[in-house]
Structures are given as structure tokens and as C-alpha cells.
């Protein structure tokens, strides 16, 4: 089992991908996960996240089988 990553909106375009799967080994939090995805860079303040379709923070724990999404500030309504 891995962690399923999803990107949305401008972040999807910046990252150049919509989804990917990452081996969960050594990853404890959303912030850890982002570093693996973005060549060691820390999670920028302007990037928001959700774990299993609920709003999360950089310190939210992640586990095998989770769906983690990264996206810019929302602009609906």
C-alpha cells in the first residue's frame, strides 16, 4: 500500500501531474510527504492540504492507504 497524492488547479499545472503514488516508508506527516514530492523543499504557506478529503495541516499524520491532496487557496462560490 502506498499514499495516493492528488494535485488541483494551479498546483496541478505547476507540478505537471494530477495524481501519483508514493511509498509511505519514513513519512509521518503531510510536511514530510511534501518534502519527498518537491525535492526536499518545505511545504509553502500558500499550499493547502487535505487528508482523506478533510482539510489538514502540515503536522497532520499520514498513513499507508491515505489520500493526500495539495491545492492553492479555494475560490468557489
Amino acid at each position, binding site marked *: 500500500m502506498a499514499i495516493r497524492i*492528488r494535485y*488541483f*488547479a*494551479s498546483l496541478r499545472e505547476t507540478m505537471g501531474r494530477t495524481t501519483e503514488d508514493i511509498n509511505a516508508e519514513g513519512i509521518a506527516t503531510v510536511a514530510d510527504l511534501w518534502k519527498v514530492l518537491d525535492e526536499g523543499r518545505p511545504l509553502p504557506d500558500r499550499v493547502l492540504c*487535505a487528508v482523506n*478529503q*478533510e*482539510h489538514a495541516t502540515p503536522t497532520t499524520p499520514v498513513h499507508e492507504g491515505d489520500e493526500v*491532496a495539495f*491545492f*492553492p*487557496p*479555494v*475560490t*468557489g*462560490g
Partner: protein
Amino acid sequence: MMQLISLRDHPFDPYAELSAFSAQLGEERHRYGAESHFIGTMRSFNEGDAVSTLWLEHYPGMTEREIARIIDEERTRLNFGPALVIHRIGKLEPGEAIVLIALFSAHRRAALDGTQGVIERLKHEAPFWKKERTSEGERWVASNTNG
């Protein structure tokens, strides 16, 4: 408690939706002396530029859950009754409805305050993203306007 949350990828008529929802309430409708509506419509301008097309991206699954959570929390706070939220996704043109919110309550305050609470929270919490086309090209909308 009747509640409808619906995402639409084609234009909808908010007035027809209000009529249909109200009719579905039937006799329950008699318990509510107040109803409040908000309709958000696509503007033909943003940040000083003419806008010809808008695209709304969303996070399928999380969007519906977030809207339901917002309604539940606002209902706990204010104690309104039935709720209707319809939101567009996909490609829109100026003048098309983006969002419709309708709340029913025994007295006016819960419906009025709840409608404002739901739209403000939806704009900050529900995972939708707007991209717009202007004469300069396409751009992501960075943030919502303040009120």
C-alpha cells in the same frame, strides 16, 4: 429534514430550482415562516479586466462532504431547517448562476444568518478553484473578493 446538495456541469435556472425544492417540501413547508436565498452569478469583469469564460475545477467527493459539513455546522449554530445548495462546475459564461443557496426556518434570523454563514464558509472552505479567460489570456483566480 430535506436537504439537497448538487454539483452541476451545465447551466441551471436558480428560480426553477427554488420552485421545485419548495414544492418538494409539501406540507412541511408550512412550518417555515422564513426562507432566504443567495444566488451568485458569473460577472463579466474581475480585477479590472473583462472576463469571457470561467472554468470551475473541484475535488470530487471532498466538495460534497465539505458543503454538507458546513451546512451541518451552521444548522447546529442557528437551527434552520431544510437546505438547498447547488454549485456549478465546468465551463461558464457571464450571467450564468454559479451558486444557489436556500435555507428555510421558522423565523427570519436563522435563514438569513445561515445563508450568509454558508456562502462565506463555502467560499473559504469548499474545494473549488476558478480559472478565467480575459483578453490577456487565461489565469487562475488567486482569491475571492471580500464580500
